[in-house]
């Protein structure tokens, strides 16, 4: 195994760059180094001006998502040795504005997320419980997969629809809505319907490329969540058509 590897890192300094450029850094290649360790080595020993986000180093915080050789990855869980002998290309996530170097602006997602009300909504007038809401393991299983989302934005980076249609809610927001829709303690599915089934930006914008599910580091399956919601939305529409007097 070679003992060094070249990292080709995208640089963008808004104060004096017109467009992003690439800078090469040759770093030691160590068996136990993730791509994030390589970036930290650059930052600590070679170039302190390099900017990127990271925090937990264990695939929980969702901060360190970047494109590694064109694939959206959590850089803390992606090992440099898998890209040996290199070079390995590190770019900011796609489909987001770049603030600086590898740092992207995710305000669009933060604005869209509350529109699907990703929190427990109880039926009107029901008093808060004295203890926790009870739930069986089978009921937990219904939504648990979707609750594993860490908002790392890899799915948005992989989704060409999000890149082409900025109104699209996107994979994670819809998966998080489904996380609550499928929760037995929640009664708020009708409140999420308008945002999720909206003609502009709702689930129907998704044409099922499926790439969001492939890149998800937590196996959330947002593509599945979206398609399942399409079935729900159709059922709701048929119900509303056949029984216009019924409750939504």
């Amino acid at each position, binding site marked *: 195994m070679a003992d060094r590897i070249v990292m080709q890192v995208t640089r*963008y300094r*808004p*104060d004096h*760059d*017109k*467009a*992003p450029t690439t800078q090469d850094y040759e770093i030691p290649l160590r068996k136990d180094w993730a791509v994030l360790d390589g970036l930290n080595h650059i930052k600590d020993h070679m170039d302190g001006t390099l900017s990127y986000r990271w925090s937990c180093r264990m695939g929980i915080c969702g901060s360190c998502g970047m494109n590694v050789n*064109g694939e959206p990855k959590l850089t803390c869980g992606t090992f440099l040795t898998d890209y040996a002998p290199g070079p390995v290309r590190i770019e900011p996530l*796609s*489909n987001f*504005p*770049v*603030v600086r170097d590898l740092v992207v*602006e995710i*305000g669009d997602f933060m604005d869209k997320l509350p529109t699907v009300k990703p929190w427990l909504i109880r039926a009107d007038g029901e008093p808060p419980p004295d203890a926790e809401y009870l739930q069986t393991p*089978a009921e937990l299983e219904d939504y648990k997969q979707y609750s594993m989302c860490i908002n790392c934005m890899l799915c948005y980076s992989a989704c*060409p629809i999000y*890149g*082409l249609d900025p109104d699209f809610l996107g994979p994670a927001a819809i998966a998080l809505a489904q996380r609550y829709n499928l929760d037995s303690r929640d009664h708020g599915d009708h409140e999420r319907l308008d945002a999720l089934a909206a003609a502009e930006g709702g689930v129907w914008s998704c*044409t*099922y*490329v*499926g*790439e969001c*599910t*492939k890149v998800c580091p937590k196996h959330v*399956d947002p*593509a*599945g969540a979206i*398609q*399942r919601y*399409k*079935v729900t939305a159709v059922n709701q529409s048929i119900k509303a058509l056949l029984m216009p007097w019924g409750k939504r």
Partner: protein
Amino acid sequence: MSENVEYGGYYARWHRPRVSRLWWLRRRSYLVFVLRELSCVFVAWFVVFLLLLVHAVSSGEREYQRFLDLSANPWMLALNVVALCFVLFHTITWFALTPQAIVVRLRGRRVPGRAILVLSYLAWAAVSAVMAWVILG
């Protein structure tokens, strides 16, 4: 300053990369997706072809013979072979996605995706068999 640079609410300015027109060539999965989307044109063509056949049958023997001659035309054959390939591609890729969209529970347990896939193919085979019986029988 590059025209791609925009002023944002929280930052002095940022760079918003444009989506390339050839984005669908970047990954195999994107290409497969675009081909699947394109396949709907050929599905529509088969519907038109079927309607032309029905029209020819209802318009008498002469019209029907003309339709058969048209169908035997080499370019029409080539078009239909390509259309068949796309329709098969459409069907197979669509079935492959079905287990993700359909969640069926039997006695509290989720039916495995593979079973849904097999049932889809069996339903396809059954419908094809009925069609073959109607046409050939």
